């Protein structure tokens, strides 16, 4: 059972090749919310580690205005916001599992929204309030694979470098839980995050929040 004040963010990514990007999205959003005085948690999924190349993986963030009491629940079972770092995850996984009506889905893809709607899980029309697409590769300075961060070593590129930057900006805008100024303070590539904030395409699917 979810604590009512918590905003749960699930990020789906691909193992090894996009591992850092997925983790950066959760960490940067949580840190930006922390800048604004929220209580946050951000962590990887335990059972998805160790990751293998291209395996679907989950990263989690929790943001709350009051102190979070769940210290040991290591999965977000009822996500409010789901972010896909890679587009083909939309087809192969039920990414909206556990989401209650009124949720948000953000996909990193170069395709228009109309082409992606047909790949949504069958229960999406009653679940999703808004569906957003961001073409992150277009704004990222470079797409990089940094394997240092995977084992807890220092991350060379900083937080939110590469395709993570535009995705962080897009998620902050669509989710509406953190301001662009806070995101800009946290990420290492503020220009990319700002482009993501500006260029995300949103379609309202109209499921009401319960």
């Amino acid at each position, binding site marked *: 059972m979810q604590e009512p004040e918590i905003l749960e963010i699930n990020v789906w990514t691909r193992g090894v090749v996009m591992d850092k990007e997925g983790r950066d999205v959760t960490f940067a959003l949580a840190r930006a919310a922390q800048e604004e005085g929220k209580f946050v948690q951000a962590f990887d999924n335990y059972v998805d580690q160790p990751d293998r190349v291209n395996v679907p993986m989950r990263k989690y963030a929790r943001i709350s205005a009051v102190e979070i009491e769940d210290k040991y629940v290591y999965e977000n079972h009822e996500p409010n916001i789901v972010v896909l770092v890679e587009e*083909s995850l939309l*087809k*192969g996984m039920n990414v909206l*599992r556990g989401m209650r009506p009124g949720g948000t889905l953000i996909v990193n893809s170069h395709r228009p929204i109309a082409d992606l709607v047909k*790949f949504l899980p069958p229960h999406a029309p009653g679940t999703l309030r808004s569906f957003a697409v961001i073409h992150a590769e277009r704004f990222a300075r470079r797409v990089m694979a940094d394997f240092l961060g995977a084992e807890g070593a220092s991350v060379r590129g900083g937080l939110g470098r590469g395709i993570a930057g535009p995705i962080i900006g897009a998620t902050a805008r669509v989710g509406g839980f953190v301001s662009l100024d806070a995101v800009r303070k946290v990420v290492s590539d503020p220009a990319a995050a700002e482009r993501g904030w500006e260029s995300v395409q949103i379609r309202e699917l109209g499921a009401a929040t319960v």
Partner: protein
Amino acid sequence: MPYAYTPKLIHIPPEKDVPFGMIVPAPEVSGEQPGMITGNWRQKRPVFDPMRCTQCRSCEMLCPDACISIDEKGIVDSDMKYCKGCGVCAFECREGAIVMVPELDFEDGVVRLETVF
């Protein structure tokens, strides 16, 4: 009081019960591997061009999932339920008869899983 040893067994679901070394038969041989569907790992899928194929069988031999089959007419096909999209077949094909195409260009071919493999 003598110590009585009672073995404690770990419950493993039958579809994940693999022998030592994690060797499982290929889906071509054993039919279904329900707990090991890896089709949703795929970002790009191999598309085979039968006009350029020379029947060298490199792709069939080198596929790490053993999911490529060649029928009696010589048409090469890959089992999309288990193909991980690693691209070894496209890399090894000397004739360039295999190209990797993004997965979302196709409507079907991926089993939507509820939980991560």
